[in-house]
């Protein structure tokens, strides 16, 4: 089941608490700066395929800037 993580880069303060709790370790600090001058975190498109949608990162984030989406099978569907 592919999952997706969205970061609100304008809110990220680059504390990196999310990088440590991610069980797959796919969150990294990028080289981009946001408007406030913090280096934001990112997940590369290839690494995103490993995301399990556990939302540990969102639970840890003190600035509420992570949104996690996951896909779910509709009722009755086989695939």
């Amino acid at each position, binding site marked *: 089941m592919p999952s997706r993580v969205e970061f609100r880069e304008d809110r990220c303060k680059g504390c990196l*608490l999310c990088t440590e709790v991610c069980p797959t370790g796919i969150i990294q600090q990028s080289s981009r700066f946001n408007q406030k001058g913090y280096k934001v975190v990112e997940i590369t498109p290839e690494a995103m395929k490993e995301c399990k949608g556990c939302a540990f990162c969102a639970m840890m984030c003190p600035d509420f800037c992570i949104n996690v989406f996951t*896909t779910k*099978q509709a009722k009755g*569907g086989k695939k």
Partner: protein
Amino acid sequence: MTQEIRVTNYPEVLTDRPTHYCPGCHHGTAHRLVAEAITDLGLVDKSILIGSIGCSVFIYNYLSLDAIESPHGRAPAVATGVKRARPDKIVFTYQGDGDLASIGMAEIMHCANRGENITTIFVNNTVYGMTGGQMAPTTLVGQKTTTCPGGRCRENEGMPIRMTEIIASLGGVAYAERVAVNNVKNIMKAKKAVTKAFEYQTKELGFSFVEILATCPTNWHMTPLQANKRVETEMIPYFPLGNFKDVLAKEEK
């Protein structure tokens, strides 16, 4: 057929506004836990927040609740007045350790001893954060701050105060627990504790108290990740986590 669903649901009480806290500060997580607990219990329309002085002074900007800002340390006194005037409302205070354990010690002790039916969320980061990192009553022995540059010394300044243990020993207290928010497991436990504290107020059992161990990376002179580790290695051994008083649990036994 598949459909995309959103895993994270931030409660509406939490306003969509960037916080003024330093990177890695646990105040944001504590705000979210309070917001989630109030939303889960359906208390949004009847909660009154009593703010305190400290870094959390602007909490009324981040939680869209009716709020009163109280003088330094006097949040429990203001909350007492509010609760006695409007007993149908849910009243809670959100205080830091410089506010609650130092200047507000008398207020919190007598408020707890009288068994006022309010909830106190106490965020303990072992330092005065807002004013620039001075020593607080909860500063750990050996910790360097701007007013004890050689580290807190037991002979001169005494030992750090364990607030939850003191509060739990008072008569009017219904619930006292110490939690941390340094990892996902502890955050889950913290959410349960905060929810329980509000639940006890709705049941009118007495004073409920939750201490949240938090970091202050700026005034500890550490990175957020190092500060998070310090909670585990230095704070939790001195401030043990767990429940210290629960009136309902006693009745069950």
